[in-house]
C-alpha cells in the first residue's frame, strides 16, 4: 500500500486528516522522492518536447498499472478494429456497397475517442467530479429528449440525430454516472438522508427514462453499476439487498409491460421453440459460437457473419469473434477481461481517497460489466438485449463513452501516484 511518491509533509498531514486512512504507512524515502519529482518537473517544464507536455505526468513516473492499462487499451482498441473489420466487411459490401464502410467510420470515431481519453487523463479528477453532476443532468435531459424527438430504430427510440451525427445519450451518460455515483457513495455515511434520496432519485429517473425508450439492457447495466459502486463503497448489506430486490421488481414490471421484452425473455429460455421468429437471433448466435469449436474457423472465415447473424457489428460481435477464434480466443478474451478488472481493483486499492477508489472500481466495473452482459447475451445466458462490446463493437457513442471511462481509470491510476491531482503540485506548477 506504500505510496512512494506521496507529496510533501504539509499535504501529507492534510491528506491524512482528510482521508483518515490508518492503513497507509509512509516510508522514509518520501522526502527524497518528492525532491526528485519536484526537480524533475521544474527543470523539464521549459524544454520538454510537445508530447511530454501533452501528458500530465512524465512517462517515467507513471505507475506500472497505468502503463499496463494504457498498453492494454491501445491493444484492445486495435484488436477491436480488426475484429470489427472481419465482422463488418461482408455486411458493409452487401448493404452499404463498400467493404470498409464501418471500419472507416470506426477509425474516425477512434481518433475522436482517443482525444477524449487524453482529455480524461489531463483533467483533474476533482474537476471531473465537480462537472459530473451538470453533465449527468444534461444527459438526463437528452435521454428525455429521445423519448420526444428520438428517431425510432428497431422499435426503440434511443437516438438523437444532429445532421450526420447520431447521439445515443444512454451511452454517453455512462462515465458521468460513474463519477456522480462516486460523488454520492464516497461520502454516503456522512450526508443526510434527504440529499441521498435526491441523488438516488436522479439515478432512478435516469433508469426509468432509459427503460421507457425502451432499452432494457442499458437500464439494467446502469442499475447494476450503481449497485456495484454502492457495494464497493461499503453501503450496508441490508440496504443493498433492498435495492437489489426493488431493482428486480422494476425489471419484472418493465418486462411484463412491454410485450417485446417479454417475448425476448421467453425466447431466451428456449430459443429453438421459434427458430424463425423470436428465437432467431439467439439461435444464430449460438450456432456461430458453437461452430468455433476449439480453435475457431480462422480470422475472417466466419460463415455466420454472412448476414445470418443480426446486428453483428454491434450486439452480436462476440459471436463472430468466437466463431473465428474458437474457445482459445474466447478464453483469451475472458482472461483479458479479468486482467482489466484486476487492474481496476489495483488502481482502486492504491487510490488515496474514496472518490478515486470508487471511480476506479466503477470504471472497471462498467467496462467489464458491459462486456459480461454482451457475452451473456450472445451465449444465451441472458435475455437477448442489445449491448455493444466496449472498444470492439461498431458505434461512435459506445466508443466515446468507453474511452472516457478508460481515460478516467487511467487518471485514477496517475493520481494514485500522488504526484498529480493534489493541491500542492498544482501550486508549484503555477
Amino acid at each position: 500500500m506504500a505510496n512512494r511518491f506521496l507529496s510533501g509533509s504539509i499535504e501529507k498531514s492534510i491528506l491524512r486528516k482528510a482521508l483518515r486512512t490508518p492503513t497507509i504507512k509512509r516510508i522514509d524515502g518520501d522526502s527524497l522522492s518528492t525532491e526528485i519529482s519536484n526537480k524533475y518537473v521544474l527543470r523539464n517544464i521549459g524544454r520538454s518536447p510537445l508530447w511530454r507536455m501533452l501528458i500530465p505526468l512524465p512517462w517515467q513516473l507513471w505507475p506500472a498499472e497505468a502503463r499496463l492499462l494504457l498498453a492494454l487499451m491501445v491493444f484492445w482498441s486495435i484488436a477491436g478494429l480488426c475484429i470489427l473489420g472481419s465482422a463488418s466487411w461482408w455486411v458493409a459490401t452487401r448493404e452499404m456497397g463498400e467493404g470498409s464502410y464501418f471500419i472507416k467510420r470506426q477509425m474516425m470515431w477512434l481518433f475522436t475517442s482517443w482525444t477524449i481519453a487524453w482529455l480524461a487523463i489531463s483533467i483533474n479528477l476533482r474537476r471531473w467530479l465537480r462537472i459530473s453532476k451538470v453533465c449527468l443532468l444534461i444527459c438526463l435531459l437528452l435521454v428525455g429528449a429521445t423519448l420526444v424527438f428520438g428517431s425510432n430504430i428497431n422499435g426503440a427510440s434511443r437516438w438523437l440525430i444532429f445532421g450526420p451525427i447520431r447521439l445515443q445519450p444512454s451511452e454517453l451518460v455512462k462515465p458521468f454516472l460513474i463519477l456522480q455515483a462516486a460523488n454520492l457513495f464516497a461520502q454516503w455515511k456522512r450526508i443526510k438522508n434527504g440529499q441521498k434520496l435526491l441523488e438516488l432519485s436522479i439515478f432512478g429517473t435516469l433508469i426509468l427514462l432509459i427503460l421507457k425508450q425502451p432499452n432494457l439492457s442499458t437500464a439494467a447495466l446502469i442499475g447494476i453499476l450503481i449497485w456495484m459502486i454502492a457495494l464497493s463503497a461499503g453501503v450496508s448489506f441490508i440496504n443493498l439487498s433492498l435495492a437489489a430486490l426493488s431493482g428486480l421488481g422494476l425489471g419484472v414490471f418493465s418486462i411484463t409491460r412491454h410485450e417485446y421484452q417479454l417475448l425476448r425473455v421467453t425466447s431466451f429460455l428456449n430459443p429453438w421453440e421459434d427458430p424463425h421468429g423470436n428465437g432467431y437471433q439467439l439461435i444464430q448466435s449460438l450456432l456461430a459460437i458453437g461452430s468455433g469449436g476449439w480453435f475457431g474457423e480462422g480470422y475472417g472465415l466466419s460463415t455466420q457473419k454472412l448476414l445470418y447473424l443480426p446486428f453483428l457489428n454491434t450486439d452480436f460481435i462476440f459471436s463472430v469473434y468466437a466463431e473465428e477464434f474458437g474457445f482459445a480466443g474466447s478464453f483469451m478474451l475472458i482472461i483479458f477481461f479479468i486482467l482489466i478488472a484486476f487492474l481496476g481493483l489495483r488502481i482502486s486499492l492504491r487510490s488515496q481517497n474514496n472518490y478515486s477508489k470508487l471511480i476506479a472500481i466503477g470504471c472497471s466495473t462498467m467496462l467489464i460489466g458491459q462486456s459480461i452482459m454482451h457475452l451473456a447475451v450472445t451465449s444465451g445466458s441472458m435475455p437477448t438485449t442489445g449491448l455493444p462490446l466496449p472498444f470492439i463493437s461498431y458505434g461512435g457513442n459506445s466508443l466515446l463513452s468507453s474511452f472516457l471511462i478508460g481515460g478516467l481509470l487511467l487518471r485514477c491510476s496517475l493520481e494514485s501516484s500522488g504526484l498529480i491531482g493534489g493541491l500542492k503540485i498544482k501550486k508549484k506548477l503555477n
Partner: protein
Amino acid sequence: MVIKNSRHSSPLKKKRLKVAPLSPIPPFRLKLTFSLLCLALLALMGRVAQLQLVQGFALEARARDYQTRKVEPLGRRRSIVDRRGRLIALDEKRYRLYAHPSKFKFVGDLQGVFRRPEEVAAKLEGVLPLTKKKLIEAFYAEETGVKLIEGLTPSIASKIENLRIDGLDLEPYLQRIYPQDDLFSNVVGFLDYDRVPQAGLELSLDNELLQKEKSRSYRFGRDGTPLPTDIEAGVFAIDKEHVHLTLDARLQEVAVNALREQLDIWKARKGAAIVMDVDNGELLVLASTPTYDPNKYWEYKSTLYKEWSVQELFEPGSTFKPINLALALEEGAIEQNGTVYDSGIVNVGGWPLTNWNKKPNGLLDFAKVLQVSSNVAMVNIIQKLNPSNYWERLNQLGISRALITDLPGAVPGHLKQKELFVKQPIHQAVASYGQGFSITPLKLVQLHALIANGGRLVEPHIRKGLPSTITTAKETFKKDDLLLSQDVTKIVLKWMESVVENGSGKGVKIDNYRIGGKTGTADQTNDGINYDSKICSFVAILPVEHPRFVVVVAVDSPKRSYAYGSTVAVPVAKKIIESLIVVEKIPPINNQTDFLSAQS
C-alpha cells in the same frame, strides 16, 4: 465536500472541522466487487466452453445444415448442331422476376424501414419493359410472390441485381431456343413450358440430351452468395458435348423453301423432301411442310408435331418401279436388253389395269418403261416372276418391318399377307407399279439407296458421331447381306438416268451431271375406298457414275389439275439437287481429273 475544503485553505478550516468524518472505504468491499466480476466471467467461460467444446459439434452441424443448400441442376440440355456445327437448338439462361412488395428495401436502409412500391417501380421502370403504372398495379395486387415478368436476359437480370433492391427475386431458368425457327422442328421437336420434351429428337433422345449435372450442395451466405468451401470435386464440370446431326441447315432451308413454294402453287396439303447419303445412311435433308416454329409451338396445331415422312405411310406408286425392275432382273425374269409389250390395258383377275393416260405404248425396252412410266408393262414383267418369290423379295426389303433408325416414331409399312398376295394375282399386279402396299417416304429413300449403293440396305439416321446400333453400308455389310447384285443396280441406274435424260424426269436435268430419277404419281385413299387424291413424288440418285445421294420429294394432295410427279415434285428436287451439288462439292463429269483428285 472534503475536496472542496482542501482547495480553500485555512480560512475555512473551522467550517470543515464541523463536517462529519468521511469513513474510508474498506478494501474488502473493493475486492468483493472484483470477485463478483471474476465470478461472472468464469461462469461465462464455463458457458462458452459448454457451447464450443461440449455442444460444439452439434451446433456446428446444425449451422452447416442451415448454411448449406442443395442446388438442383437447372436441367441443362445439350445443344443440337447440324453437320457443319450450326446451332439448331440450345439452352439459354433466362430469368423470372418475382416481387415481394411488403419487403421492399434499398441498400443502406435501416432495419425496419420499408420502401413504398412507387419508389421501387420508379427504379425498375427504365430496366424492365413494363410501365410504371403496370408495376405499381402488380405490386399492390399481392403482398408477396408477385410474378412480374419472365424471359429476362442475363444482361437485364444483372442490371436489376445492381439496383440492390430487397424484395425482388430473380429466378434463373433455362429456355430452349431454336435459332433456325421452323427449319428443323419436324425432326428436333420442342420442349414445352416445363421443359418436358414433346416431340422429335428432344423426346426420343431425352436421356442423351440431358447433361449429367450433379446436384451441388455448398455453403451460402444468407443473401445467396455461394462460398468456396465444402465443394465436391466435379460439381461445376459442364460438358460441352453437342448432339451432332447429319442434317445440313443450308440444304434444309433450300428444301423447306422450295417445298413451301410448291405447296402454295399447287395448294397441296403437305410435302416432304429427304436427301440421304447412300453409303452411310446419313440424312442431309429431312424437310417437311407445313411445319411449326418450335419457339412458339403453342400457336400451331398439335397434328403438325408429327414428322409424316417417317411416321405416315403412303403408296409409293411409280417411284417403286425401278425397284421392281431390279427384283425382276435379280430373279432372271427379264434380260438387260429385253423388251415388253404395253397394250394399254391388262386384265388381272377381272380387274382392268391401265396406264396413267389410259393409252398404249407398244413395244418397250425397259428404260422406256421407266421413261413413260408404263403400268401395263410393269404388270407384264411382274407376272413373269414366281409370285411367292416376288413376295419373299419384297419382304426381304423390309417393307413390313419398322425402319431401324434414330428418327423417332418410325412405323412399319404394310404388305399383304403372303398367302393372300400369292393367291390373288391382282395384288402382285398392283404391287408392280407401287400400289397395294404402303411404306413411309423414308423407307422409299432407303430402298432407292439399294440401287444407288449396289444392293446394301443402309439405315437412315440423323445423328452423327455417337455410337449406336446404326450400321453404315461401308463398314458392316458382308456379301451375303446384299439384296441386289451390283450388276443389277448398275443396269437399273442407267435406266433411271434415261428417265432424266428423255423421260418424265427431264425437269432436273443439269448440264455435266449424271442424274438418275423416277417420277411417281400415286393415287391414294383416305378412307380406303375412294382413290380421290394423289401423292406426287420424285426420286433422284446422283451422280450416276458414282452414286452418293438419294433425293426423294413427295407432295401430298395437290389440288390443281396436271399435278404429276414431273410437275409438282421435280422442281423441288431440282432446287435441292442444285444446292446439294454446291454444298457437297460434287464434281461435274467432264472434269474427270478433278473428280479423281477429289476422291483420293
